């Protein structure tokens, strides 16, 4: 029996057994997980499932793009990258099905009444739409993999079409299953003077009313972008492992390039992630304003401090990778940038914070003024003769990442709950108001959203500038793939680990915003574990999940790519050395 047949059988089997288990729930018994407790059990299994699912949904997006690039540019490296990532995806697909089935069982055993209630409300989704999509995706994924060698040459377009179809089904699956997930956070807006929420959901609401809730589309966008980031960094991880195991310069050259592309994909999508996250948080706060202080100021405030630290580390690491990659380009010392760009980069956090304080988002001026500001500086750069070296640019960029991250992490108060905030201000940011002509400023502005947005923009802007610089160096200099500082492989490993850890942290935050409800404001969680866990406890769970996921993925990478290395090696391009700009 082939792998795809075994996987399909496993998925169908799990669904049948799961449905049968659900059907036998007239008076369900709640099972207690020893030591960890039921919540931690569901937490671990759900997070594991989401991590595997994120990869198998995120990776095909850039795999198909890579395949297209390889086909159009006649560059075998892209083709090989796409094929190797797909090979790992196929193995991890089985793990997605396995953890998905396990997730259903654990839910049914630990929260039987609520699980039955949720399944009843989304019966068509759980019993028909989602299983059909999953089966369709299984078939298409294995079709995509097993037809890879057969559909070459003039038939290549057919293979690409299968890949596109795989992505369409994958994204549809994500969107469908996000419906019940988002429903648990934002079931429906409480009617003002009309029907109350419970009556509406239990009697009148259609499946579409429940699916099309406040946070559904923000969650879809956030998860899609997040999955690409995740897939990109896991690609970097694959490259790092293979680089470590490489036996010759050709292998090192290929996996050096592989890691570069993985980082590029991860960072490229990462640039959009803070804004997708902001959109989701904005919608949650708009749905119920009490969620906002719970997240940003009260029980979860320090989770967001940790998120700030993680985002800062990820941006520092990705820029450090660019730096290491740039250092081995011959002729990098000749690459220079306008002084105006440097001044623009330095001024962005302060200027944008003031602008967004004066004209808060979504005021049109909040877009027009910053865009105009950037355009003016870039125009000045065209006319002034002063330039700075690429090394200076990158070093200033690192300084700006640290400053941007410091602003991102500045809280109103260093307390884990507003209820216990001391009166004396010993843990709070001072006000210290100063009136300028344009706008009134104060120190505590640093803790407000305009400052956070300016900080996020600074991190993104600096990274874009670094990539522009890197691109110039690639076009004008000469790169030798395979000769990168060995530390770069550990940076790739760090990026993947940090991305997974942050994903676990923010997943916990989204779930915890439901507070002591299974479905916010609608279904109370009557179990003794409905409280907010500490960040310290959560960090242990998240690290445990991350390490377990890493062990499985590491095993999958070594097993699939190392064992098939000889065959892949035969297809490897002779890539060292090559002119940086060469196609």
């Amino acid at each position: 029996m082939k792998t795809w047949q075994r996987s399909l059988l496993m998925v169908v089997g799990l669904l049948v057994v799961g449905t049968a288990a659900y059907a036998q729930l007239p008076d369900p018994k709640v099972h207690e997980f020893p030591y960890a407790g039921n919540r931690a059990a569901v937490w671990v299994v759900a997070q594991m499932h989401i991590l595997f699912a994120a990869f198998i949904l995120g990776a095909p997006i850039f795999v198909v793009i890579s395949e297209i690039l390889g086909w159009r540019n006649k560059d075998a490296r892209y083709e090989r990258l796409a094929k190797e990532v797909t090979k790992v995806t196929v193995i991890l697909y089985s793990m997605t099905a396995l953890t998905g089935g396990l997730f259903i069982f654990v839910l049914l055993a630990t929260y039987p009444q609520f699980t039955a209630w949720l399944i009843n409300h989304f019966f068509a989704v759980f019993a028909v739409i989602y299983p059909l999509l999953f089966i369709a995706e299984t078939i298409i994924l294995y079709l995509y993999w097993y037809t890879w060698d057969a559909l070459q040459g003039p038939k290549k377009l057919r293979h690409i079409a299968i890949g596109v179809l795989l992505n369409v089904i994958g994204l549809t699956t994500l969107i469908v299953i996000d419906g019940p997930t988002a429903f648990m956070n934002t079931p429906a807006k409480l009617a003002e003077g009309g029907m109350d929420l419970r009556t509406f959901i239990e009697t009148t609401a259609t499946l579409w009313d429940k699916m099309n809730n406040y946070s559904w589309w923000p969650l879809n966008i956030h998860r899609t972008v997040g999955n690409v980031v995740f897939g990109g960094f896991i690609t970097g991880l694959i490259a790092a492992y293979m680089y470590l195991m490489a036996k010759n310069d050709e292998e090192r050259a290929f996996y050096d390039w592989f890691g570069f592309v993985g980082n590029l994909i991860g960072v490229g999508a990462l640039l959009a992630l803070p804004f997708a996250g902001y959109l989701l948080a904005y919608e949650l706060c708009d749905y119920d304003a009490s969620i906002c202080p719970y997240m940003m100021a009260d029980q979860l405030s320090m989770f967001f401090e940790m998120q700030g630290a993680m985002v800062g580390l990820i941006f520092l690491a990705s820029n450090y990778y660019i730096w290491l990659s740039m250092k081995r380009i011959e002729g990098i010392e000749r690459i220079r940038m306008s002084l105006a760009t440097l001044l623009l980069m330095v001024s962005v956090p302060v200027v944008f914070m003031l602008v967004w304080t004066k004209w808060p988002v979504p005021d049109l001026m909040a877009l027009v003024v910053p865009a105009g500001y950037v355009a003016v500086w870039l125009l000045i750069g065209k006319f002034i003769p002063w330039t700075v070296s690429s090394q200076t640019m990158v070093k200033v960029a690192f300084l700006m990442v640290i400053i941007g991250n410091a602003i991102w992490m500045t809280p109103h108060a260093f307390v884990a709950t507003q209820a216990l905030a001391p009166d004396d201000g010993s843990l709070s940011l001072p006000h210290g108001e100063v009136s300028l002509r344009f706008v009134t400023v104060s120190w505590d502005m640093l803790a407000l959203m305009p400052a956070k947005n300016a900080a996020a923009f600074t991190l993104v802007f600096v990274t874009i500038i670094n990539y522009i610089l890197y691109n110039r160096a690639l076009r004008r200099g000469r790169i030798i793939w395979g000769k990168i500082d060995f530390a770069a492989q550990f940076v790739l490993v760090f990026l993947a680990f940090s991305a997974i850890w942050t994903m676990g942290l923010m997943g916990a935050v989204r779930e915890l915003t439901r507070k002591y409800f299974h479905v916010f404001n609608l279904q109370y969680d009557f179990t003794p574990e409905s409280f907010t866990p500490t960040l310290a406890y959560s960090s242990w769970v998240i690290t445990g999940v991350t390490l377990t996921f890493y062990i499985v993925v590491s095993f999958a990478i070594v097993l699939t790519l190392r064992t098939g290395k000889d065959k892949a090696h035969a297809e490897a391009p002779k890539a060292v050395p090559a002119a940086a700009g060469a196609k």
Partner: protein
Amino acid sequence: MAAVRSFIGILSKRLLLGGIAAVVLFLAARFVFHFPPVFQVMFVLYAALGTLVFILLDAPAVPTFSGFKAVVALVAFYAVISGAFIAGANFLPQYDPQVEKGKIDKIVKPKLAATDKGKVDELLKRSEELNAQSQAILKRLEALGGEEAKKIEASLGGGAGPAAAPATTGGNLIALGKEQYDLQECYNCHKIGGKGSVKKRGPTLDNIGNLMKPEEIKEKILNPRAWMAEGFDKEYAKKQMPAKYKELLADTEVNALVAYLSSLKDASVQTPKPIKK
């Protein structure tokens, strides 16, 4: 060897500059900007991070290695970053779940009892215990304005919600109202007695009892669009105050909250004027 010597030179220079930056930032935060100690520490930590980054930028290239050495290095690297992330999370202030557990019990248990008939007896028993305790509290609170609380309760009238609290009177009602204020975490947006939100989300309420009648406060809680606090136009437009309390709170709980808020009459604290919408 020359590369090592060169890096030692760079290392010394960076450490010196990082140290100077840390001292300057610390002194500026303490004596110029008058930041609290925790923010002074934060400035020093960022100087340390900056120093580390700039040392790494000029560090000599790590030689390539593989095989067993690479595996050991990877495992050690995972251990270090796992430890660093856990340590970072443990270093930050921690929320005490016990505080929330007590609150959740008070909120969720009545709801559970209301949906499960088998728990009715247990609820009655608990009510009797609470009543005995409340009588004791009442005696103590009456001395602190119980007569006024009784008047407020009379003006609002009684009511039975899905999880009706035991009959309450006077200062007992105010105490229960204060409890509701804490349980619903109103302090996340409002301030009373200088305690509560450090961010301007909702108005200070210290003198609200002099500015609004009890029935007006009740109207505001049940229908937040009915009233707006002066200077809070933006927050009102963004519907900052959720309209969920009429569904989540029993009538008796709302009355208790109103009684508590109506008892707040500290004219020395500037409280935004309510505007009828």
